[in-house]
């Protein structure tokens, strides 16, 4: 198992190096530069423009800049935002818990509803329930997040008044950040109603962010279950007289889980992508919104650092998924 883990880790390193290059080149190939954006309609003289670009080190040949960037990274320094003047790692660490909290809740919703829906749809193939689940999944998958979020806000917050419109907690509560996770911090604050407020603020954004993964998981579970249910060993289990719950829950589900876990792992990347829009609509102070702002401001160090950190997290999650295969199906770690 350890060798298996090491082998996977060795594959990750060149990928990480590749991401540094992509992140570096990507932001620099975008037209415009941070100095020009700073000046706005007023503009600035070419001399002043050159002076400011030089001060930020953006006048050096791109290969030199990349070399300096790698050197900086090797020292664990992700750079400093040219706009806020704060270290990129510090900004990321401040905002990341908000995204993680939202993503975990979204994923819980997606798994909690997606898995059973897919399983039941597979066991009742062709039924009204099956058609309903598959049609809903397709609708959920195709729905633009922005529109979906706004629709929920208008209905549940605007018309019914059941949920707050946006933010992480009511602004009536104020407490120091301890962990960055609002559910934990609000609980620790001891302020009456703060935890409930944080919970209620999580509902709509989690549903919105969890919609696409839910649809994907439901579809994938259904398809994997259908495949497994037609296998000989399932037929044998049934022939042995095992109850349907045991056949489906133990024999079929365990084998059907391999592709489902792969999909769940891949959804982590989808969640980060979805977080960009969800965070914007729900004024959720996470890394998605921060990345978009940084791109618009051409904050090169923030974009590079942010992309790199997000990529690293997605890679780690996928590594964990690979390890999980081994746990679920011992054959994988022997044959791989």
């Amino acid at each position, binding site marked *: 198992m350890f060798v298996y883990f090491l082998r996977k880790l060795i594959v990750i390193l060149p990928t990480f190096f590749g991401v540094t290059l992509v992140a570096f080149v990507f932001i620099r190939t*975008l*037209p*415009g*530069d941070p100095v*020009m*954006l*700073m*000046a*706005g*309609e*007023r*503009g*600035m*003289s*070419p001399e*002043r423009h050159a002076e*400011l670009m030089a*001060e930020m080190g953006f006048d050096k040949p791109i290969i030199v800049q990349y070399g300096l960037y790698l050197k900086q990274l090797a020292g664990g320094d992700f750079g400093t935002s*040219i*706009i*806020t*003047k704060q270290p990129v790692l510090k*900004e990321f660490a*401040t*905002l990341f818990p908000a995204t993680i909290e939202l993503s975990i809740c979204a994923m819980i919703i997606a798994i909690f509803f997606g898995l059973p829906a897919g399983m039941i749809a597979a066991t009742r193939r062709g039924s009204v329930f099956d058609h309903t689940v598959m049609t809903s999944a397709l609708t959920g998958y195709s729905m633009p997040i922005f529109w979906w979020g*706004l629709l929920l*806000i*208008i209905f549940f*917050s*605007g018309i019914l*008044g059941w949920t*707050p*419109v*946006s*933010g*992480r907690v*009511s*602004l*009536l509560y*104020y407490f120091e*950040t301890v962990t960055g996770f609002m559910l934990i911090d609000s609980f620790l604050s001891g302020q009456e109603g703060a935890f409930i407020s944080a919970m209620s603020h999580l509902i709509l954004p989690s549903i919105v962010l969890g919609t696409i993964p839910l649809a994907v998981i439901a579809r994938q579970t259904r398809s994997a279950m259908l495949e497994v249910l037609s296998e000989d060993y399932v037929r044998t289990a049934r022939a042995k007289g095992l109850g349907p719950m045991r056949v489906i829950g133990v024999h079929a589900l365990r084998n059907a889980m391999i592709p489902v876990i792969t999909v769940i792992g891949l959804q982590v990347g989808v969640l980060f992508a979805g977080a960009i829009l969800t965070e*914007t*609509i*729900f*004024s959720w*102070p*996470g890394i998605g*919104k*921060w990345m978009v*702002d940084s791109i618009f401001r*051409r904050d090169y160090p923030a974009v590079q650092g942010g992309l790199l950190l997000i990529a690293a997290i997605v890679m780690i999650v996928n590594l964990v998924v690979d390890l999980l295969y081994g746990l679920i199906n011992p054959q994988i770690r022997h044959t791989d």
Partner: protein
Amino acid sequence: MRKTKNLIAAFCGATLLMASMQAMAAPKTLVFCSEGSPEGFNPAFYTAGTTFDASSRTLFDKLSAFKRGTTEIEPGLAEKWDISADGLEYTFHLRKGVKFHTTTNFKPTRDFNADDIIFTFMRQFDKEHPYHKVGGGKYEYFNSMSMPDLIKEIVKVDDYTVKFVLKRKEAPFIANLAMDFASVFSAEYADNMMKAGTPDKVDFEPVGTGPFQFVAYQKDASIRYKAHPDYWRGKAAIDNLVFAITPDPSVRYQKLKANECQVMFNPNPADLDAMKKDPVVNLLQKEGLNVGYLAYNTSVAPFDNVKVRKALNMAMNKKAILEAVYQGSGKIAKNPIPPTIWSYNDAVVDDPYDPVAAKKALDEAGVKDLKMKIWAMPVQRPYNPNARRMAEMLQADFAQVGVGVEIVSFEWAEYLKRSKEKNRDGAVLLGWTGDNGDPDNFLAVLLGCDAVGNANRAQWCYKPFDDLIQKAKVTADPAERTKLYGQAQVVFKEQAPWATIAHSVVFQPVRKEVVDFRIDPFGGNIFYGVDLK
């Protein structure tokens, strides 16, 4: 019976008294739905309105100030000022008894004085100042207002008198000092932080003399302030001010409806009708201090010919543009400055919409089958809510007079960069929102000879015009300046380097319980003087 009545009266009285005491004790909190995070809290480093709202307009004061909701100058931290006869020396007499904020980091031991003015300006002006490089050392507004070329020296005369000596006359100087970059910092706080080895704190944990003091900032979520108890103009009516950072305009409106905020910024034009009918919302509106224009490149043929420019101006149906692009809420622009700025020349007559005359004029100019480009901005700005739509309407208008238009656009930063180029191909849609309410801030910045290849997108250097604005800039007498700028507007109209399109109206929705919120002509959000019912 009488006893019972007395008892009831006493009970009611006591209840009322308790209720009023509770009302007195309950702090008033106003939540403002802002559209973005500030870049930082030192307004001297930045140029964005969101940053100024969160810093200079809440936390700081300047030597001079704009009267709330107007472009009129009034005394700020300087009680009064004298200008020498040659117009080169400005002596400011500072206000006494002004207190800085007391925070967890800083307890001021003295009142505001001349040292704070010296620190504030020398930090930006003197490259050798110990604080010049702190925070990156980029003072873009100070530079773009030409302060380093203008100021000769800043002298502390005594503790409450400071003198600015200029290298040349500059009539808008007092207005410039009311701008955000001139926010006054505490020299004592800066010294303390430098000694503690944390000079950056001056910019991240700001201390000013303004009406509100900084409490906390949660990035991309909220900024909290409380009223400065010793504010020199008197404590603010609201006790706590919270900025709820809400990037989406439709969500801001939903929050306003749900009373999650009481004032919101920059509404979605599509929501305006609903806001007008909304019983909880008071939709304030005001003519903006802005102009949206189409700048021809006057250095390239055939746009170097004034007849061609005038002909194209006549081909433009501005009324239709106003309806379609500005949803009818704007004003057709005939001058390069908005009517809210002093010296606006209302006697100037706009080019009439007359496609037949336009075609004839083009023929007379010898221009046939003209093909041109119109640049459409990729972003929504207060002076132009939909540049693409505007460009399409111009394309249709120009087609009527036989001019073929290709619409081009670039990403915003690239647009700003390429549109400055002297040999640019095409006419550019752009605009401007005033910084200090002075006509010079429009006419010299956007149309002066010095700005060619930069903010002068028409690349237009016309000596008779430039002479007038340069003379006005060094003239102290307001009446004389008004006359000169009036003449400059006439010359501008004759020469038509731009097609002036519109001055937009600015909308600001507030809840009905908000008292005396006034729209800032500079596009800011100012909460001193605002109360809640």
